[in-house]
């Protein structure tokens, strides 16, 4: 647990000092909203369309962080340092997934208000508590799969291509769950509570892949 906190602290400190990942993700997501505005030729969105646009934007912006997640470890010899230390290897998975979760939350803190201002045609406040629950579950899915895929992709030749290539199909069930759960929240007079079926699917997805990643992650670090 102390290892996890140390690695997580290192990653967050690095991000705070370099400001490389999260600002890029935020700019990317805002640019994506503008593209959706012109691509769909709509001034405001609601319902399932709004849920889908928001989910897809978060997913694609998340891919930017996924691509960069292990680059420093690979290039600066962080993997060797970690392997030399007498610590549990799964700690790196947990720490990196937690860092990714924090990055995604940071992205959403800016991207959701920006979305509400730029594209959303209905008031955000009634939907907000439900939306936070949905996005929290979606962030877990994205962090777990993203960390696993990033650890595979970082050792390959075409690193930036392989990450999204593996990650996007793996995340399709989570994308369906998030978009379907967020859609009914973003309508006028919504009940404010997301559909339980989709929350359950998201939670199941999170659980299965978290356990699976925990089981196989050790093999990605052996040398």
């Amino acid at each position, binding site marked *: 647990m102390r290892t996890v906190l140390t690695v997580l602290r290192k990653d967050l400190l690095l991000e705070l000092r370099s400001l490389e990942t999260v600002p890029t993700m935020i700019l990317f997501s805002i640019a994506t909203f503008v593209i959706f505005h012109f691509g769909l030729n709509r001034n405001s969105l609601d319902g399932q369309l709004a849920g889908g646009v928001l989910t897809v934007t978060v997913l694609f912006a998340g891919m930017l962080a996924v691509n960069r997640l292990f680059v420093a470890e690979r290039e600066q010899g962080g993997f060797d340092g970690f392997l030399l230390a007498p610590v549990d290897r799964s700690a790196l998975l947990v720490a990196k997934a937690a860092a990714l979760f924090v990055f995604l939350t940071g992205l959403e803190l800016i991207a959701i208000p920006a979305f509400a201002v730029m594209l959303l045609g209905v008031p955000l406040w009634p939907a907000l508590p439900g939306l936070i629950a949905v996005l929290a579950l979606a962030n877990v899915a994205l962090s777990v799969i993203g960390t696993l895929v990033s650890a*595979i992709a970082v*050792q*390959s030749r075409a690193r930036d291509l*392989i990450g999204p290539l593996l990650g996007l199909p*793996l995340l*399709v069930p989570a994308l369906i769950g998030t978009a379907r759960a967020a859609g009914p929240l973003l309508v006028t007079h919504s009940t404010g509570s997301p559909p339980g079926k989709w929350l359950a699917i998201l939670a199941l*997805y999170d659980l299965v892949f978290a356990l699976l990643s925990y089981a*196989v992650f050790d093999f990605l670090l052996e040398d």
Partner: protein
Amino acid sequence: MITYGRRLRGLSLVTIATISLAYALAFFYAPEDADQGFIQKIFYLHVPLAIVSLCGFIFGGLLAIGYLRTGDRRWDIRSYVAIHMALIFGIGALITGSIWAKASWGHWWVWNEPTLVSFLIVVLLFATYQPMRFSIEDPERQARYASVFAIVAGAFVPLNFIAVRLANQYVHPRVLTLEGGNLPASMALTFYIALLGITLLYVTLWTYEMAAKNARMQVRATRRKLLGEDAMAPLRRSAAPS
């Protein structure tokens, strides 16, 4: 030393016999579907292809567990060949499914059809297996990473089907349900023989490719022993250990 070639002749003969029997039954014994007519016969090819392909993906994941447990590269090659073959069967299932959809629903592709869409996602995911595998140069690491991917993706198959199925209404004809389906006995018999035939085809092709890879490995090992390390050009895009 394992020889895959010895079993190959008998296996091929059984496969040819079963598949011939299955499609003879499909065309001459099973009754024509009252609703869909002749096009329904493609069902004896499409459904077995889809089922065998999905089982092949999961089979590849199970073989990959063998690699991670033992570190023996033969398990990794078995897993690679299983996924490779399942992918070919999967593309066959997508094409035959599309033909059936065109004839029966009037469209080549139907998005609100959960089985079709989830199958496409699985095929897309496994289509990334080879680019991922061959972009890692170190053979040891390639085997390890490919195994990790095969296990995760194998577990993804059932989960994906649950998610996509819930997202849509049922349109796809349910062939195998828990209640035993609603096929007449003659159709069911033909279907199960076709399923057996396609399964045998998968096993035969798997054994055939394993035999070929095995033979190539042995030839390379012998050449290296006789001609020295420098005489061997490194293999490009191959899962076989050199």
